[in-house]
């Protein structure tokens, strides 16, 4: 990744504009050809620097109104197996192993689920728990997106 790649990423961090040839605008701003822009983007997608190029949707607007982190206490030797199993579900958008806090918080596996209702999340979690045989978990429903709702001066 060079300086132009960085500039390109920062240019696209806020998204493309809705014009017929959106990458032309970006190329003009950076003073490079549109072919170069496309090539650089494709390269960064291939190497994984860009995880995804596309639309970010507002989950509420399309019916995904329930969102939760589910924290699990998974025995150390089962972390890989359980992590891969949880990750195989489309409804699970994130799955991480994390260090717990000794004596205060034993949960070491975290998944994020989006669904149309809390009932659907509860059913899915019951299914996952039953399948892996792990019942020590906590569902942490999201109440408010603080990053997108709490702003200075508002």
């Amino acid at each position: 990744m060079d300086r132009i790649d960085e500039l390109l990423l920062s240019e696209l961090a806020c998204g493309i504009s809705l014009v017929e040839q959106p990458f032309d605008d970006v190329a003009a701003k950076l003073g490079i050809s549109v072919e170069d822009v496309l090539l650089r983007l494709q390269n960064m997608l291939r190497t994984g620097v860009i995880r995804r190029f596309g639309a970010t949707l507002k989950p509420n607007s399309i019916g995904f109104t329930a969102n939760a982190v589910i924290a699990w206490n998974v025995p150390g030797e089962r972390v890989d197996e359980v992590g891969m199993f949880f990750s195989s579900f489309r409804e699970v958008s994130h799955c991480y192993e994390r260090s717990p806090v000794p004596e205060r918080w034993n949960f070491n596996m975290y998944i994020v689920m989006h669904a149309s209702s809390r009932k659907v999340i509860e059913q899915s979690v019951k299914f996952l728990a039953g399948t892996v045989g792990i019942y020590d978990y906590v569902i942490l429903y999201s109440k408010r997106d603080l990053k997108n709702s709490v702003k200075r001066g508002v």
Partner: protein
Amino acid sequence: MVVGLALNDVDKKFNVCVLDDVDKCLLQLLQENFPIVECPWRELSEKLGVSEQQVLSRVENLFASGVIRKIGSIVDLAKIGYTSTTLVALRVSDDKIDDVALIINEYSCNVDGGGVVGNVSHNYEREHEYNVWFTLTAKSEQELSCMLNEILQKTGLSQSDVLNLPTVKRFKINVNFLVNDNVDVVAVV
């Protein structure tokens, strides 16, 4: 069938916009297979069997109705040096949540390489005794712990009100919503 808490939310009045099958296909393609070509809308229009102008005006409507937040690149922070990440949970009294959120949000727009990343990617109020949950990322363990200490100091919270849950292994990150047949109407916000 109408689905969606936003629509049922009795506190607010919403207008609605109807999604047809073309919109649903379009949303799926926009999320998963956005064409990195000179005329992306034309390529999408060929896949969808509608005109390029139709695609653009549908995308404009989906933006206007708040369904689409942005169309752009999502960077894998780990690949550009942000290798240390953690999830932090705080126990905050209800009347202090917004103040604490503001302090955390200041770290969501730190610039690097001209604005590619912020150190905070998520910040949510959750229904639990630990009620504020945010992710923090930095270029080293040291930088991460300095930043976390700085945040905690500003909030005035004590260590007993904090859970620091560093990432050991990432199994999956793929936020991609299946716009299913149950959703025909969306809220215009």
